[in-house]
């Protein structure tokens, strides 16, 4: 007999929302989380004089290890304009290959939402039917309408601020009014207006008014370094907090699940874990795997808990993005505000970019590119040295304007996760190995984004572009999806529409790995939460 009804592996957005929904339904939940707990009030450094040096406070075990496959050769004859570049440093990647930089993530209670920007997006309904309409990726086995009530639940629990006249069909208003754009964003918006591009306040998991005993945002722009006020709706201060309040949810941190064990009845029988006291076994009637789109397939593959389709680890999708940054003559003070206060959805539909399948979206990018502190300005923006440099720093009004476009990444056969054949972690478990290749279609989409970024900056009156970077010449990803895709059939998907494994009757997967397609630049966390809330109703 187990003390728990369900074991959840991972306390990121997927695990947290699952824990909340299942414990609210009366189930006794145990969350096993490999990383540590963060206390927003004491762990984040934004009120300390050397905050820029400290950045996000990664603690021991708060990042996983992984390796990379073969680097893709860059096709500069066609796409050299997409190379990452800075006016001071020149080309950032001087080789002829696409370099593997980083999979940005946090291990801990809250997972990667601890340093996320807080965008809370609903998917474009058509982006969920990419195979039917365009013959690419795979269809979601459920419709936007089926997911919509769970989006509402997630938005209400998190306290999402947004504009009700936005682009998606909604059955209920946002719980909070939208944030007003910063001064720099008002200037950037002029560029959109000139080009007849529409924009709307971004829907954000950032409180525009006090909500659920959390204060409103005070616009410090540093969300990616951890929000000490807890107004940013990371999973720890929202779903985990609510789950713990039920009295039926327990979290064990610093516990890495090493293996899932199975029985002859096509069920998971137990999990083997390692903590600072050694290795142990836990069991429960139900298991929810929510270790994220890279660790979830790793754990399944390492446990040899595959499926009949051979799809575990396949269809990996990363963040397709291009960012341009320029100086503007206006005294912008662009270190203030929110990282991404407004958004343009005009090209978000999968057929919105002329002659290119897959959509994209555009939003401001100054804070996400790191331009909130003096250190970045001194090295990436202001040229020179000596007295002139110091003078220029003192005269600067933080005049950077930035724009990012994020687009659909379509699955391809060369982009997947498998187990490294040589490198293991300290417990002897093979590391996840990331394979990533961009297709011609991805590069075309990227090129469209790059050109649009340039046009927007120009139209907004920016004077000198000083930096461009993209995932053309670097694997450098914040959103990862798709390595245990959901679908109707067991021969081409890993879980069904309710996130239950086709193969293992008591195993559910509730993280970004179930996405059959990435969407046209929508940020994934709200969809991960909505899927998990829906799953809990079908368990």
């Amino acid at each position: 007999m187990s003390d728990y009804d369900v074991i959840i592996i991972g306390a990121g957005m997927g695990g947290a929302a699952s824990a909340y929904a299942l414990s609210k339904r009366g189930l006794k939940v145990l969350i096993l989380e490999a990383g540590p707990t963060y206390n927003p009030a004491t762990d984040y450094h934004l009120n300390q004089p050397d905050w820029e040096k400290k950045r996000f406070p990664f603690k021991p075990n708060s990042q996983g290890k992984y390796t990379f496959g073969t680097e893709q050769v860059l096709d500069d004859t066609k796409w050299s304009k997409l190379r990452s570049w800075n006016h001071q440093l020149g080309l950032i990647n001087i080789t002829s290959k696409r370099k593997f930089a980083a999979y940005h993530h946090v291990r801990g209670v809250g997972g990667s939402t601890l340093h996320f920007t807080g965008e809370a997006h609903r998917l474009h309904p058509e982006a969920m039917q990419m195979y039917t309409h365009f013959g690419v990726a795979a269809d979601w086995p459920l419709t936007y309408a089926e997911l919509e009530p769970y989006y509402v639940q997630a938005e209400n629990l998190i306290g999402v601020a947004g504009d009700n006249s936005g682009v998606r069909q909604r059955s209920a208003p946002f719980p909070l009014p939208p944030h007003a754009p910063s001064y720099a964003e008002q200037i950037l918006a002029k560029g959109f207006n000139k080009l007849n591009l529409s924009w709307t306040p971004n829907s954000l998991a950032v409180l525009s008014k006090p909500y659920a005993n959390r204060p409103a945002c005070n616009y410090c722009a540093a969300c990616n370094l951890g929000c000490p006020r807890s107004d940013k709706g990371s999973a720890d201060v929202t779903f985990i907090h609510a789950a713990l309040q039920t009295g039926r949810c327990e979290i064990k941190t610093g516990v890495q699940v090493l293996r899932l064990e199975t029985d002859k009845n096509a069920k998971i029988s137990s999990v083997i874990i390692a903590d600072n006291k050694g290795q142990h076994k836990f069991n429960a009637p139900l298991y929810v795997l929510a270790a994220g789109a890279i660790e979830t397939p790793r754990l399944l593959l390492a446990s040899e808990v595959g499926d009949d389709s051979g799809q575990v680890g396949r269809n990996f999708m990363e963040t397709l993005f291009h960012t341009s940054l320029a100086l503007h003559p206006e005294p912008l003070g662009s270190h203030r505000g929110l990282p991404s206060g407004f958004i343009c959805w005009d090209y978000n539909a999968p057929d919105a970019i002329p002659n290119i399948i897959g959509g994209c979206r555009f939003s401001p990018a100054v804070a996400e590119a790191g331009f909130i502190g003096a250190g970045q300005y001194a090295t990436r923006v202001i040229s020179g040295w000596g007295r002139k440099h110091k003078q220029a720093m003192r005269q600067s009004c933080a005049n950077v304007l930035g724009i990012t476009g994020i687009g659909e990444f379509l699955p391809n056969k060369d982009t997947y996760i498998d187990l490294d054949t040589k490198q293991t972690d300290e417990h002897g478990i093979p590391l996840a190995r990331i394979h990533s290749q961009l297709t011609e279609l991805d590069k075309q989409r990227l090129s469209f984004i790059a050109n649009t970024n340039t046009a927007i900056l120009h139209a907004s009156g920016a004077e000198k572009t000083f930096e461009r970077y993209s995932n053309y010449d670097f694997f450098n990803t914040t959103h990862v999806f798709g390595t245990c895709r959901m679908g109707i059939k067991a021969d081409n998907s890993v879980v069904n529409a309710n996130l239950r494994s086709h193969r293992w009757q008591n195993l559910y997967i509730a993280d970004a790995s179930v996405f059959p397609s990435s969407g046209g630049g929508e940020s994934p966390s709200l969809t991960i939460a909505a899927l998990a809330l829906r799953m809990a109703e079908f368990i």
Partner: protein
Amino acid sequence: MNRRLLLQRLLGGSLLISAGWMLKSIFLPVTNHEKLIWRSWIDHLIPTDQTPGALDLEIDHKLWQEAEQDIAVLVLVRQGCSWLNQVALQNYNLSFVELNETQANTIITFATQSPFHYLPNRFFRYSHLRAMQLYYTDPRSRIGTVWEQTPQPIGFINYQQRCTHV
């Protein structure tokens, strides 16, 4: 001296530094003079004016310590210092530490304009990047800048308004 001419001569000078000489020199113990050159170089990159300079915040010392942790960086730093001194001697008949601001700036300009993968350029890029990063993450450096205030605890509730700094 005509700046252009000097640059041409400096370029010649840098190519004359033989790889063998460089390699041999890095196995020699670090001298006080090398450290003084480094100190002077960092001082020229971020001098004291109405706000503290890099030396006031001991950036030279911190970066030297950092270089000692990584042999590749230490080699770059020591080679860079050797190069600085050699160029100063060739062109001004003075050690780098004795140069005035204009003379030092001429050499720095040359370093920035030398080809990307050449020692002077790599040395400049490395030391400029690290010195600026370290210097500006110290709050004493930010006096009088738009970044004087930390992001929290009060945030920027005036974020919708035009920036009034300067």
